[in-house]
């Protein structure tokens, strides 16, 4: 349709709008990423966008106004400019427009800088920020009154391991349990089958907040608070409805003939499940695994409640949130810390994006 010219312009319009949207979406993350490699002081003094070529005022000469006998209370004549102290404070351009005069310091002792505009980039990159957040250990601080305060180190590497220890079982356990259940619903007949399946579907959208208070009480009785087991079971419980539902839809749709011939050969349900169903369900298992892994890795609330009492087991999101709370202006720590928490989910996401999208499309309502 349309002439070649029209088609060219509509493609330009589409791609132009798309580019703007993509930039809007990417710039926030990019700013953080670039900043995480910048020098600690640079981050505080200049915007991260100054790593790109830009024009900046650079001082070429410094004039001492007292040498010239200038009176800061009145109008001063300097370098062909006549201006008051207040005007000079804000900077005054020279008549040829190439230089700027600026009063630095106070009225009595300050100097006038002659500045020139030049193209420049702020390229002072470093790995120090990452070194500090990964390696930071606790240190003790002795107060003047003799009490000792322990200031927790950033130690993101420790938190990283904790996150792994939380996320891997919290991903695999619900998948295993849900796969067994999905097989049971799809291939076995038992009383209560319909009731239990309705329960699974009903629980799909139940907000997990509903469970936190009673569970914390149970955990207190069982002395489970602050243990890995506590948080694995919690993530398992909250992830199970979606896992069971998705895997049921997949397993129930597998061709019946394959399974029936296996049963005729005398295989038990367990053997059929392990040897036949699990390998056949890999795409569905992978979809849910990515879903659950990202969800658990990025979770903050569940970790805060069930691991909150045990700083030794803190996961990366908790560690990062703690820095936001206590040292919200230490941008060199926050930027690097944020990327340490993101590196694994981003890797998983980019390498397995196809499966993730498939999981999203299969059903995405989670409580």
């Amino acid at each position, binding site marked *: 349709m349309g002439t070649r010219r029209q088609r060219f312009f509509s493609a330009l319009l589409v791609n132009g709008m798309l580019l703007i949207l993509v930039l809007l979406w990417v710039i926030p993350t990019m700013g953080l990423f670039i900043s995480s490699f910048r020098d600690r002081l640079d981050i505080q003094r200049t915007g991260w966008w100054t790593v790109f070529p830009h024009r900046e005022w650079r001082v070429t000469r410094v004039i001492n106004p007292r040498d010239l006998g200038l009176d800061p209370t009145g109008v001063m004549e300097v370098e062909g400019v006549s201006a008051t102290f207040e005007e000079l404070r804000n900077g005054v351009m020279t008549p040829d427009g190439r230089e700027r005069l600026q009063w630095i310091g106070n009225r009595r002792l300050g100097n006038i800088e002659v500045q020139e505009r030049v193209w420049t980039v702020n390229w002072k990159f470093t790995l120090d920020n990452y070194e500090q957040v990964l390696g930071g250990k606790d240190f003790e601080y002795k107060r003047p009154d003799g009490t000792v305060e322990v200031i927790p180190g950033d130690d993101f590497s420790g938190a990283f391991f904790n996150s792994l220890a939380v996320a891997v079982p919290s991903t695999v356990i619900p998948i295993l349990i849900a796969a067994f*259940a999905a097989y*049971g619903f799809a291939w076995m007949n038992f009383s209560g089958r319909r009731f239990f399946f309705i329960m699974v579907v009903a629980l799909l959208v139940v907000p997990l907040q509903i469970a936190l208070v*009673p569970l914390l009480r149970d955990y207190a009785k069982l002395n489970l608070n602050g243990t890995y087991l506590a948080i694995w079971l919690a993530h398992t419980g909250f992830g199970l409805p979606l896992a069971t539902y998705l895997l049921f839809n997949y397993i129930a749709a597998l061709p019946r003939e394959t399974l029936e011939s296996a049963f005729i050969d005398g295989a038990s349900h367990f053997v059929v499940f392990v040897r036949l169903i699990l390998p056949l369900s890999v795409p569905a298992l992978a979809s849910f695994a990515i879903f659950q892994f990202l969800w658990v890795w990025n979770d903050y609330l569940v970790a805060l409640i069930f691991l909150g009492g045990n700083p030794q087991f803190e996961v990366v999101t908790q560690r990062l949130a703690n820095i936001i709370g206590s040292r919200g202006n230490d941008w060199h720590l926050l930027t690097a810390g944020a990327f340490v928490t993101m590196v694994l989910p981003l890797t998983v996401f980019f390498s397995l994006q196809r499966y993730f999208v498939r999981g999203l499309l299969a059903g995405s309502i989670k409580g």
Partner: protein
Amino acid sequence: MELLLKPAEGPRGLGARILTFIVRLIVVVAIPFLAFAVLYAGFVFLRAGNAPKWVITLVAILWGVGGVALLFWLFNWLVEHLSDTWRARLLPFVFVGPAMAILTWYLALPTIRTFWISLFGRDGPPSVPWLKLFTAPGEFLATLAPHWVGLSNYVAVFTDRLMREAFRNNLFFWILFGVPLTVVFGLLVAVLADRSRFERVAKSFIFLPMAISFVGAGVIWNFIYEVRPPTAPQIGLLNAVVVALGGQPQAWPAHTGIAPWNNLFLVIIVVWLQAGFAMVLFSAALKGIPDELLEAARVDGANEIQVFFRIMLPYISGTVITVTTTIVIFTLKIFDVVWVMTGGQFGTEVIATQFYRQSFIARNAGYGSAIAIILLIAVIPVMIYNLRRIREQKGFS
């Protein structure tokens, strides 16, 4: 026991049969015992937690994952030693049982228990064994009575100033602004990408924030909103732009001068995080529209905007509803972003931050539980819709 255990095969002497029986019995008892011992040893090791971090991590992963696999194998092994009738009866529960037990403990029962707690004061109901209701009903009720508050927690939920603020923010800013913005951006990207040669790249970039945690997103956007004194150079992108345009730098989410509109600066973060999700679903739905339908409309002289509103949008309306409901449910429970960015200060409280504050900081279990029940009631229509859809599904009619 003889009923339960498989009868020995073939004619054999009585002594041999008794011997096999005893050996079997020992094995049946010993293997579970051994398995539980191994699991318990792992648990104790992990709880002590004094080994190097990577060892603990490795053991935790092996123990957690291996333990569950071991339990399934064990239960199956036990059931397979039973007689055929019992095996047929119990085997489904080996498969479905663990999932149902966990679901019951972690989600189904807590809805009832949370409702029960919400009828009591600060500390919830005092712990009395339920059995007492039948053995000593008078004593049972007498212990509960002093803590019973009836529905007054719910009255407080709807009258408390902070809760009213939370409802306003959740319903007005998060749902009325956040959800449509997410849907519109998702749809816009899906439609544009569908016509672009750079579809894959563009979609990946929009989708990327889905992999970022709320806490991480909080850092990213805190950095965008970072404010410096007007005389110093701005290092936050938004304030740098504002200053370049001649405005005053502000701490946007904490800017009470524009309250309650400062909530929108938090809403933007979630739009940024969730638009990718909407985009993926819309993109798949758009690809399902038959080409002939679109071509026919264009031949009839419809322009692209008409094609979008008259054909595409009606065609994918089902997906629009699904995406909208999912994001509504999601935004109802929004917590991390607000908690990390403002802690609910500056008029940005939402339902879930109030729930957390009341339940776990103020330690007012009854009040916190009432808030959780409100969240549950809010999702019940979706639950009913899901159940209706299941009814139509084959196999569960």
